[in-house]
């Protein structure tokens, strides 16, 4: 197939978000959401399960939270399993993928959501705090992506969504480590997207603004005045975008970073 023989995009075929297109993609495979015991990851797992994906609900330590997400999904008629492991450790990444491949099938959707904060002005930031955030937010996404890519490339279909942040695009004093990790994630997203686009594997990022989760529980209300929408977002606002990006209809979107921030970065 060359130039003029380009295959029709899934959108051109009229698949849209059509059940047939999604069913074909999800059959025999699964979705992995890292850091899915709460917040954006948990809501993403629930929505993907609603769309027919068998979801690997990853957690590092919060097995109660991940177990609750799995329970909610299965009670609603969906399929999910808990896959425990620290995605900042290469050995854990391998075991997570092997567990899913052996019990369900290849990972066709990867949502790199696991993240952490350890805030301090750069002048006072310690090496440990720097490395912890970089390893969890950026290096882990690299390791899971590297592991996921070959089956996606060989299967000629894949969806990778990286949960970045608007802090990766604009300054936020006190979060130099977090900002660096999220800016790195955005750059990583673009380059990997360009590498694998020919194989119908898309790689995109979402950049949440101020979203009400456990990770932002200490953020002050004065921030709301800076948001054009004058309100915080909810995990579902981010999960809905991720849900769209993994559908066949989103097959021509790749290398993009989509802010979900009530206009904060406009």
């Amino acid at each position, binding site marked *: *197939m*060359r130039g003029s023989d380009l295959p029709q995009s899934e959108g051109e075929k009229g698949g849209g978000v059509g059940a047939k297109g999604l069913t074909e993609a999800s059959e025999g495979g699964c979705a992995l959401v890292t850091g899915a015991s709460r917040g954006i990851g948990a809501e993403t797992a629930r929505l993907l399960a609603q769309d027919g994906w068998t979801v690997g609900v990853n957690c590092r330590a919060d097995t109660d939270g991940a177990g609750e997400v799995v329970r909610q999904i299965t009670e609603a008629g969906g399929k999910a399993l808990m896959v425990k492991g620290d995605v900042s450790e290469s050995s854990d990444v391998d075991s997570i993928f092997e567990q899913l491949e052996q019990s369900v099938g290849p990972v066709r959707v990867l949502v790199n959501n696991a993240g952490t904060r350890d805030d301090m002005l750069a002048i006072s930031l310690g090496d440990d705090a720097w490395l912890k955030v970089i390893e969890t937010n950026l290096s882990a996404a690299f390791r899971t992506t590297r592991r996921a890519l*070959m089956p996606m*490339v*060989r299967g000629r279909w894949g969806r990778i969504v990286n949960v970045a942040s608007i802090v990766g695009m604009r300054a936020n004093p006190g979060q130099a480590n977090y900002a660096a990790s999220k800016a790195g994630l955005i750059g990583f997203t673009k380059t990997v997207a360009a*590498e*694998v686009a*020919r*194989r119908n594997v898309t790689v995109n990022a979402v950049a949440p603004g101020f979203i009400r989760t456990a990770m932002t529980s200490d953020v002050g209300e004065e921030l709301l005045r800076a948001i054009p929408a004058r309100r915080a977002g909810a995990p579902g606002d981010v999960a809905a975008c991720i849900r769209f990006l993994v559908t066949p209809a989103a097959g021509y979107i790749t290398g993009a970073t989509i802010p979900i921030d009530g206009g904060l970065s406009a």
Partner: protein
Amino acid sequence: MSSNNHEGVQKFVFDSIAIFGPEPEEISREATLESLDVDSLDLVELGQLVEEKYGVRLQPQDFEDVSTVGDAVDVIATKVQ
């Protein structure tokens, strides 16, 4: 015929490259990878196909000096035999 000999490896490589898009009649030992639009990702996938078929692991640097299909065949045949 053993598929591990040079002729068998060449057929395997030609068939594998055809999976990446070129028309079979375009593939020859003299054809450059560039002319066939075979990129580095295709070579990574070729390496995996070789590993699955022959149990031999190729490294990215094995393809450093490869510019034609024949070059790729010769590198892989050397590793396999």
